[in-house]
Structures are given as structure tokens and as C-alpha cells.
């Protein structure tokens, strides 16, 4: 009950936020919601099913490129283009998952496999002339156009889309955790062999986790493409991006529902705060924000390896998963 009230309150605050904040805080909020969303998506694989993926940039990139190319070439609006984008990313995820699980590539090796596929794809896109290669792909922008279906409009439109995506992903993850599949994931995460012995179809359950996670992540990519209007393989498929995606859920608490959201708030505010402070002092330099991220990760992993949310939830006396 307490948890629902708090969540409802937070959601209401976020819905009303654009009324009271300026352009810069709104941009920061969009960033927070975007990374919260991606964190929830990644968490389905690692936090729930115990599959360490370090190549989630692959799904962001595929989603972004498919939807962007369909829009630029055929005028397909973002909301329609998101369907093939999600299908392509899910198929890629399922292919990697099928290979990895069939050939028993586990743990850190599985993480390396996901990195290898993401990097492989990055280099392919770097050389794909059709999408601009390494010089990037740009979406045409028409000023004054406002359309939710085409994802064209002012920042506040993107803010509500980001909020909607994050809220929907949160509810989806919460719903899934109460299904048979959700329990199967947890069983596999704790002990795959015991889960198999108890009659869980480990392969199918893992594939389902990959499918949900990659599909959700690709929609984040579609959002990225239409929000920023530009993409470079060097950035969108990079390992640095994959790492950025996993920081929020780790810091907030892997395997918890609210962890990725909390982690994204903490990290983004920390990062933006540091940048603003350094700029104010005239000391701004590339790398400063990331050093702070690294230190935050180090502190959390050393002191609170389960993440911030389980600790905070206990303080607030609400159920572990909120």
C-alpha cells in the first residue's frame, strides 16, 4: 500500500513536472527517464534471468537505425516503424541467445559473446554506405511539425513519450514477475540446474527474457533516434553505451523493479550536477562525469552490492520490490 502510494505520487509529480520546470531540467528529466527505461529493459535479462549482457547497445542501435531509415526513406512514422525495429532487434537477440544457450556459453563468456556481436555490428554499420557509414545518419527535421505518431515535436512531447515508455516498461516488468515465466526466471538466476530439475524449460525461459529485453531496448533506440535526430555507429553501438545502460540498474539494485529508476535518478543527477559545478568553476573537462560514474559504481559494488533500492526500501518500510 505504502509502495503504491509512493509510486503513484512520484508518477503524478513526473506528469506535472513540465508545468514547473525550464528547458534544461526537462532535458535532464528526459535523460533520466530514458536511462530508467533502458535499465528496466536490461534488468529483465540480468536482474531477473541472470543473463549478463554487455551488448545492449546493439539493440538500441538496431532499433534506432531501422526506424530512422524507414522514416527517412519511406516516410514511415515512428510509431509504425517501431514495429519492424523491435522485430529486427528481437530476432538479433534471439539469434545471439540461441547460439549462446545451445553452445553453453555462460557467465562472463556470455557477456563477451554479446560484446562481440555488438562490436561486430558497429563495424558493419561503419561500412554500410546506405545508412551513411561512419559519418552518421541524420533524420530530416521539419520545424513546427507536431505529431505523436511520427514522434515529431517539442521536447515536452518527448518527455511524455519517455515517461510513458518508462511507466509501461515498469508495469510490464512488474506484471511479468507475477507470472509463471517470472518465477522461472528467478529460479534460473539462482540455480539453472535446480530449475531444470524442477521442470523449468531453461532454454525457453531464457529466450523469452532475451526477447522481452531486446524488444524493449530497441524501442528505447527508436526514441533516441527521433529525439536526437542523428546517430553514429561509433556512438550508438559502442561498448561505452552498453556500459552506460547497465550502470543505473546496478546502482539502483539489480533484480528489483524500482532499482533501475532510482539508479537513473541518482546517476544522472550526480553526473549533471558534477558537470554543472565544474562548468561553474571553469574546470569542465571531458571525462569528469564518467569518473564520477565510475566512483559511484565502485562505492556501490563495494558497500551495497545489492544496490541502493533494497536498502532504501527497508528504510521506508516498504516491500523489497515496491
Amino acid at each position, binding site marked *: 500500500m505504502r509502495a503504491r502510494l509512493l509510486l503513484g505520487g512520484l508518477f503524478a509529480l513526473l506528469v506535472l513536472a513540465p508545468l514547473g520546470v525550464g528547458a534544461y531540467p526537462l532535458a535532464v528529466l528526459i535523460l533520466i527517464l530514458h536511462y530508467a527505461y533502458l535499465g528496466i529493459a536490461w534488468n529483465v535479462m540480468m536482474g531477473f534471468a541472470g543473463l549478463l549482457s554487455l551488448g545492449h547497445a546493439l539493440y538500441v542501435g538496431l532499433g534506432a537505425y531501422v526506424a530512422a531509415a524507414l522514416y527517412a526513406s519511406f516516410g514511415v512514422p515512428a510509431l509504425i516503424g517501431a514495429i519492424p525495429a523491435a522485430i529486427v532487434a528481437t530476432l538479433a537477440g534471439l539469434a545471439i541467445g540461441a547460439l549462446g544457450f545451445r553452445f553453453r556459453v555462460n557467465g562472463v563468456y556470455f557477456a563477451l559473446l554479446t560484446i562481440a556481436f555488438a562490436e561486430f555490428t558497429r*563495424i558493419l554499420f561503419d561500412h554500410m554506405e546506405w545508412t551513411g557509414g561512419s559519418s552518421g545518419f541524420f533524420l530530416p527535421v521539419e520545424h513546427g511539425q507536431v505529431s505523436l505518431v511520427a514522434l515529431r515535436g517539442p521536447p515536452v512531447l518527448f518527455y511524455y513519450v519517455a515517461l510513458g515508455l518508462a511507466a509501461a516498461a515498469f508495469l510490464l516488468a512488474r506484471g511479468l514477475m507475477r507470472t509463471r515465466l517470472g518465477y522461472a526466471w528467478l529460479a534460473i538466476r539462482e540455480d539453472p540446474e535446480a530449475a531444470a530439475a524442477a521442470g523449468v524449460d531453461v532454454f525457453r525461459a531464457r529466450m523469452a527474457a532475451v526477447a522481452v529485453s531486446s524488444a524493449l531496448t530497441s524501442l528505447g533506440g527508436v526514441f533516441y533516434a527521433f529525439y536526437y535526430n542523428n546517430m553514429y555507429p561509433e556512438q550508438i553501438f559502442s561498448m561505452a553505451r552498453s556500459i552506460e545502460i547497465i550502470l543505473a540498474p546496478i546502482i539502483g539494485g539489480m533484480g528489483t523493479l524500482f532499482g533501475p529508476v532510482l539508479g537513473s535518478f541518482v546517476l544522472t543527477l550526480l553526473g549533471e550536477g558534477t558537470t554543472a559545478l565544474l562548468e561553474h568553476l571553469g574546470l569542465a573537462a571531458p571525462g569528469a562525469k564518467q569518473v564520477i560514474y565510475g566512483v559511484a559504481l565502485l562505492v556501490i559494488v563495494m558497500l551495497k552490492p545489492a544496490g541502493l533500492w533494497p536498502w532504501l526500501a527497508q528504510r521506508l518500510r516498504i516491500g523489497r520490490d515496491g
Partner: protein
Amino acid sequence: MAVYLDILASGVLTGLVYGLMALGLSVIFGVVRVVNFAHGELTVAAMYMAWVLASTLGADPLLTLPVIAAALFAVGYALQRFLVEPFIGRPEHEQFMLLLAVAIIVLNGLLLVFGPDARHVKVDYAYDSFELGPMLLDTVRVYAAAAAIVLAGGLYLFFRFTDLGTAIRACADNLLGAQVVGLDVRRLYALTFGLGCALVGASGTLLVLMRDATPQLAIQLTLMAFIVVIIGGLGSMAGALVGGVLIGVSEALAGFLLTPSLKSLFSYGLLILVLLLRPEGLMGRRA
């Protein structure tokens, strides 16, 4: 035909330095059973050290190598003692995240201090070459490869014939047994981590003779070390060198036959194949 021989030779020589770097990863994993995800970041840190010493004192990297290796040894020793040690026995993904945090801090610390520009170390013999039969070998590569072979050989002798090396191998082969006979495992782990990082220091110093130092190189080198070690087999010393040479040659050939920027495509393709078909590596033992 002669041009292929040159490329092959250059690939082998460069590959030996890759192999030396990967050897560090392999030694740490083989003994401490921790995957050092900050490997490339530390390598690039060593490259910058060599650059600083070369640009301020005019010191040849080949001469500053022992100093940098010693410095990295200290870094590795401290890293194990203060950060990694509490994580021994904790889940694999927590160890991984710890070293990921170290990697992020080192990488961006370098970016913060040195900026994003490439740093180049210039030596007098940069454009010299040896003539060997029909082949032309770059002097820098020959020196670097020779140093890599000497160091790898020294490491082999250390593990094979000294008491300390034998003790470290004992920890790797039978941890419980090692503890029973009274070996100070914590100290040996720290020494091993230091040793692995000393190899990183040495290979970074050699690498700066062949490539410019940039922070962006770090992730590439971490992945390269993983590719080399996984192809050769995690924990196998000879495997690391063979894997390094294989990657060096395939990159050199791909860089010549195709666009240079496509060359790592082959490394990643090879990594995917090896992970799927022989996860224990080409020269590793089946677990």
C-alpha cells in the same frame, strides 16, 4: 609475394606484443580466477607513462620499460590487496562490476589528465628496418617483439624453476592444498596480480613504439586481450602468445587486403566462433 611475407612478419611481431599483454590477463585469471576487465585501461595508462617519460626526459621506452613495469606491479599489487581481495569468492558478476568500475575510472581519469588527443612517442629508429632475406622488418617491431619474447621466457622460467613461481602455481592448481601446506595465499594472489600488471606495463611501453596513445584505445585493448586469451585458452601461457600472433597476423592481412578499419571485424568474428565452438580456447584444457 614478398609483400605478403613483410605483412606476415609485421603481424607476427606485433602479435607477440599483443600476446604479452594478454599473458598478463591469463596469469591473473589462471591464478586469482578474477577476470581483469581493466586490462586495456591499465595498458593505456602504461603507454601514457612511457610517453610522459619520453617527452620530458627524452627517455627511450625500451629503457624506461623496467620502471614502468615496476610501477604497474605496485598498482596491481595494491589493486588486489585493497579492492579485489574482498571480492574473492563473491559472485562472478560482482567481481566483474568492480573491475568495470576500475576500468571506467582509469579510462576517464586518463581522458581528464591527458585529453582526447593522440600522443606519439618518437624514437630515432622509428623508420629504420632490418633486411632479412627478402623481408623488410621494422626495427621498432623487432625490438618490441624481442622484448616480449624475453619477458615471456623469463616468466616461464620464473613459474617453472623458482620457489615463488612454484608456490603461485600451487595456488592455481589446488587452492585448498596450497592453504593446507601453509602458503600465504593472500600475498601470493597480490604478487600474481602485480605480476600480471607488470606484464601490462611492459606491453604498454612496447606498444607505444608502434601505436599512438589515446584513451579510446583502452576498450579496444581490453577486448583484444580477451580475444587473444580466449582464442588461446584462458590460463594457458603458450596459448596467449599463439593467440596474440594469430590476431596480429589476421589484423595485418585484413588491413592490407581490405580497408584497415575492417580489420577488427575478423577478430570479433574469430572470437564469436571460438566462444561457440571451443570455449576453452584453442590450446586450453577442457574444464
